């Protein structure tokens, strides 16, 4: 039997990255739980061995259950019956398997029934599940909500709700409303406190809620009457057993059809406050969204991997003009570019996962003891990088995923347009990744800070410090030239101190940084494993040309162009 973990050596390669050792040390705190929990690791090597073996379980469930169910789940989808969301039969089977295998609450501490895994192996699992069925990956991936409860809720709520996850509780994050999509500051769902009952109640409508009928929902609501901005919003936990929410409908969607997207009406629904009032959006949802964005990055790469594999298989099988189409340059160029871009995005994915892992592990240590000054600085540094790498990843991985799905379908020709091959489903599933958890355009708004504050550049300087073998020197030189180009572009865009002009070119600058960062990461991967050398060379070649093109456009661009841009649309409508 095949296995989604063992058939992709990249996954084990990133699990065994040297930085993961430091993460395990922080996370396991001298392996202090080895006496109290029979499944806790004894040492670093033991921990990595456990991760690998558990990821093999995930890989085998992907191969034997989730991937084979994907087509029927896509066709059947969930439905609504007496105010209850019923999953497709295959979804039920997938989830039951994962619960039985103990794969919900992977990152939660052991005292809450979790596996205490770092985020890196959790994201590897998510990538595999997304490759098997992207829609199902959402239902599984919403276990992220447990992390938010763990980080911010009271001890009482943690004790009550966290142990439910490993037993199979499902979760949802209820943020979006009809008039509050990208702009969550306008959330209107009302929360009021009843002092007699010592209880919060929720009233209002939520829309586009993935897995809306979950056991545990985190709901963003306006708790401060008369407030209008983010500072009036708090986060609440709603327990499905209260039966105080009406599911108005399940949306009919283009893709990820197995994942139920619900419109909900809260009718005086009892709920618990998470953390402090007014901190809902500012702190907790931002943290939740960052986890979700990292998850979507992994999902996008899982989908891209699935698309690539379908395309390669078809290109080998399909013969035209007397030979397999993979032999034509027009086709193999597409396929090689897919592989190269997946490799680049994957190296960024796991770099981001390690950054998040490191700073969060420090925060966990800080619950037990005061961090040393050096540790505190290290934590801050990793958090600062994680904050700008997460939107960079979400932006580039989701856009790349869409491009790869597009090309993979193209390789199939007319057959790809038919419902006969999995690629049409993969193509539809890919589309959402650049929209939800913040559109690409919103990711740029967050990521541009990495450009303007110099965070990307300082990380790039750190990569430059790392020694590489002489045979990789030519790549290092090329990357240095790309960095010079990037700096030139930033100077041109920011010299006039015009915010709209910066916004206009923001995506270009962020993508330039992304190409340099991914180039460095692949080069460093090649340093650790020779098989990455070609991938690094080809990616840097493509990235170099792309960055030159962007610089060239920026050079030609003037502030008054913005007016022209607006004028063109206005003229047409008029």
């Amino acid at each position: 039997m095949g296995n989604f973990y063992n058939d992709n050596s990249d996954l084990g390669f990133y699990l065994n990255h040297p930085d993961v050792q430091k993460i395990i040390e922080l996370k396991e705190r001298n392996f202090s739980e080895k006496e109290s929990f029979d499944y806790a690791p004894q040492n670093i090597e033991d921990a990595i061995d456990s991760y690998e073996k558990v990821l093999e379980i995930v890989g085998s469930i992907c191969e034997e259950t989730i991937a084979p169910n994907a087509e029927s789940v896509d066709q059947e989808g969930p439905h609504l019956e007496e105010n209850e969301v019923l999953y497709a039969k295959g979804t039920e089977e997938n989830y039951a398997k994962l619960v039985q295998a103990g794969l919900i609450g992977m990152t939660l501490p052991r005292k809450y029934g979790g596996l205490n895994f770092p985020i890196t192996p959790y994201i590897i699992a998510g990538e595999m599940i997304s490759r098997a069925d992207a829609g199902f990956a959402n239902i599984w991936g919403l276990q992220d909500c447990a992390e938010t409860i763990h980080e911010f809720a009271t001890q009482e709520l943690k004790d009550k709700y966290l142990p439910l996850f490993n037993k199979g509780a499902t979760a949802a994050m209820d943020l979006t409303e009809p008039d509050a999509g990208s702009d969550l500051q306008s959330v209107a769902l009302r929360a009021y406190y009843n002092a007699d009952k010592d209880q919060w109640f929720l009233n209002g409508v939520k829309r586009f809620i993935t897995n809306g009928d979950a056991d545990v929902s985190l709901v963003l609501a306006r708790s401060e009457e008369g407030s209008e901005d983010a500072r009036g919003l708090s986060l609440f936990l709603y327990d499905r057993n209260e039966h105080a929410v009406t599911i108005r409908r399940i949306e009919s969607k283009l893709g990820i059809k197995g994942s139920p997207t619900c419109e909900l009406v809260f009718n005086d629904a009892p709920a618990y406050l998470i953390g402090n009032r007014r901190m809902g959006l500012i702190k907790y949802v931002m943290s939740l969204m960052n986890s979700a964005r990292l998850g979507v990055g992994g999902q996008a790469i899982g989908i891209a991997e699935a698309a690539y594999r379908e395309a390669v298989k078809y290109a080998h099988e399909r013969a035209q003009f007397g030979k397999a189409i993979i032999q034509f340059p027009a086709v193999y160029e597409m396929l090689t570019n897919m592989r190269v871009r997946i490799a680049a995005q994957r190296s960024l994915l796991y770099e981001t996962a390690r950054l998040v892992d490191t700073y969060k592990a420090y925060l966990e240590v800080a619950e037990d003891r005061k961090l040393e000054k050096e540790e505190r600085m290290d934590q801050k540094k990793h958090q600062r990088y994680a904050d700008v790498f997460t939107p960079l990843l979400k932006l580039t991985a989701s856009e790349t995923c869409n491009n790869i799905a597009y090309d993979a379908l193209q390789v199939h020709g007319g057959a790809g347009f038919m419902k006969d091959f999995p690629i049409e489903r993969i193509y539809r599933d890919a589309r959402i990744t650049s929209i939800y958890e913040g559109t690409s355009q919103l990711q740029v708004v967050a990521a541009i800070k990495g450009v303007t504050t110099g965070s990307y550049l300082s990380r790039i300087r750190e990569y430059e410090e790392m020694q590489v073998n002489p045979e990789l020197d030519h790549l290092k030189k090329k990357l240095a030239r790309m960095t010079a180009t990037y700096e030139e572009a930033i100077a041109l865009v920011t010299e006039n101190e015009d915010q709209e002009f910066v916004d206009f070119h923001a995506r270009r600058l962020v993508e330039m940084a992304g190409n340099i960062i991914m180039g460095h990461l692949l080069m460093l991967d090649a340093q650790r494993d020779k098989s990455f050398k070609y991938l690094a060379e080809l990616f840097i070649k493509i990235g170099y040309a792309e960055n030159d093109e962007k610089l060239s456009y920026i050079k030609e661009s003037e502030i008054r162009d913005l007016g022209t841009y607006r004028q063109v649309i206005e003229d047409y409508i008029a």
Partner: protein
Amino acid sequence: MKGLKIIVLAKQVPDTRNVGKDAMKADGTVNRSALPAIFNPEDLQALEQALRIKDQIPETTVTTITMGPVRAANIIREALYRGADDGVLITDRRFAGSDTLATSYALSLAAKKIGKFDLIVCGRQAIDGDTAQVGPQVAEKLGIPQVTYVEEILEVNKKKITVKRRLENGVETLVAPYPLLLTVHGSAPECRSRNAKLLMKFKHACTPAELVREAEDYLRLHDLHDYLDITEWNVDDLNADLTWLGLKGSPTKVQRVENIVFTVKESIQVKPDKEGIDGLMKELIAHHNVG
């Protein structure tokens, strides 16, 4: 009152479902080194049935017994990862060459040594020999009733069990008291997957022979936790009579093994119309190819 005591008999087999061209040796025997060693599929399904009973009746224990070389301890671990409580590896050079009769003799001795079991569950047959003899022979040697070809457990309590048998021309429902041996049919549900926590708990479980090779860091673990010790029994532990074992105790003699490649000997032309297809279907049904 305690739960049931269940024994699962399992065999490590070469994966004959994915055979390459090196699968057979020139002398007609299976080339074990060319094929991955796996948990016999129907034995895995038998394990699932045992675990389902354990899920239903509190304090039920499931013990896996396997006979084979040292590496067959993998079978015990695989069962632990899925929810079995412990396991016994029967291993001894003197067992080498055992046929089904000698194997069932050894397995029955092990079951007796464990003692006071309510239920023995095993797969109908192993994919390397396909004899379906070991289960029934174990029951005979232990003098207990048996129900073969079980597809589903319909009801189970501490006194009796109701099962559905999958037979060639239908199904049969039987009720039986304990002690009892069940052989499980391939149409039964697949086994559950490994559980992450159980895997991490039991991955260092090993037999005394394997313990010698464990890294020093983990030896301390074995001192602390008895559940990491996989019991290993040899001929002497079982007080086995040597004349019933190995080649000596095996009346089965393989005279010759042939490599048969199926070839098309005749063909018929079917007209691509309603009558043609109709006739073909009738013929297939008459020959029990379908239906």
